[in-house]
């Protein structure tokens, strides 16, 4: 009788929703350290060391610079404690090359994310 009552749609649907919400929040709890990382490469695909990667956070009407990171010898950069869910990433090198701004949209705030490589190119003449 009790198990049969659980299969009634008025019970099963809310229970299913609660299960989804709980599972989603558990997933968030394990993946919300605010780490955003990726690589910077040149057009040939080689890693670019010492490049500056800028994270722009979306304000209501524009994007403002929020944080900077520098790539290591393998061209890897890493932002930590990023408490946002939307922004843009851009890589710049000391010799004037830079990447296109990449839109970053996350499923929740502080989501740990691995971004596809940013490719730096020389400025157009």
């Amino acid at each position, binding site marked *: 009788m009790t198990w049969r009552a659980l299969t009634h*749609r*008025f019970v099963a*649907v809310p229970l299913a929703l609660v299960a989804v919400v709980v599972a989603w929040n558990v997933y968030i709890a394990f993946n919300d350290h605010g780490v955003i990382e990726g690589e910077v490469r040149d057009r040939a695909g080689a890693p670019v060391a010492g490049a500056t990667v800028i994270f722009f956070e979306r304000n*209501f*009407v524009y994007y403002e610079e929020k944080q900077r990171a520098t790539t290591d010898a393998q061209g890897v950069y890493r932002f930590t404690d990023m408490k946002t*869910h*939307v922004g843009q990433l851009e890589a710049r090198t000391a010799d004037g090359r830079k990447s296109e701004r990449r839109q970053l*949209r*996350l*499923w*929740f*705030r502080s989501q740990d994310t691995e971004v596809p490589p940013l490719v730096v190119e020389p400025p157009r003449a």
Partner: protein
Amino acid sequence: MPRPSRRPPGSPPHWPRHAIMIVVSFLMLIPFYWVVKTSLTGENIYAYPPRIVPVDPHLFNYVDVWYMIPFARYLLNSVIVTAMAIAGSLLFNVAAGYALTKHFPGRRWVVMLLLSCMLIPFQATIIPAYLITSWLGVLDTWLGVALPLLSTIICIFVFKASFEAVPPSLIDAARVDGLSEWRIVTRILLPLSKSAIATNVILTFIWSWNAFLWPLIAIRTPEMQTLPLGLARFLSVMEDTTGALYAFVVLVLIPGLAIFLMAQKEFIRGLTSGATKG
């Protein structure tokens, strides 16, 4: 072995009627489809020619809504107010509906008074409603927002019609067995009035969930706002957020649609039984 047709011999085929109904359903669903499509793409709704199929759909507009405004707080307020309205309306409408099945002096006048009160729009009574709510000290509270829906005349008559459809001999037998009036209602009448209960629940849910004018007047602090007020606030403070706006609309619609889809059988049965037996 071919399946025998349920259509009586000589009667016209069903498919033309079904085809017309499918076309009409499709036309009725177009606005909903457009809202969902815009929430997934964020494209300009005035774009010409309009795109039927969404291009590059995504769910990030819903994420934006969740973080741009205190959606969870609005949702909580709406859920609590709606739950209070449903619980209160069930209690008071059942009691009033049962009372109207009894014979007492002036019953006809009470019924006439209730029916005539249905002609008065809520907007006309909103100042007295505000003064009463203020006098009770429940302005800017969940109870104050739910107050006007704690009893509704339509649902009183739905319960009255449902209770009158129960054979009087059944109630007389319960009374002979020593059941009190309250237990007759809860043990005999309500189990036989599931359609009326579903109708009451769904109607009260829809009215409470979509209520805008009364919450706008009764609520003063942003923390107490419900989803429709949140939608108005969202429109007033955000710009260039077509996709997020439509995502908000979809999020407001989903609970109502889910409740209706879960209870549509009881809902339709409750309304039609009220119409034929009242």
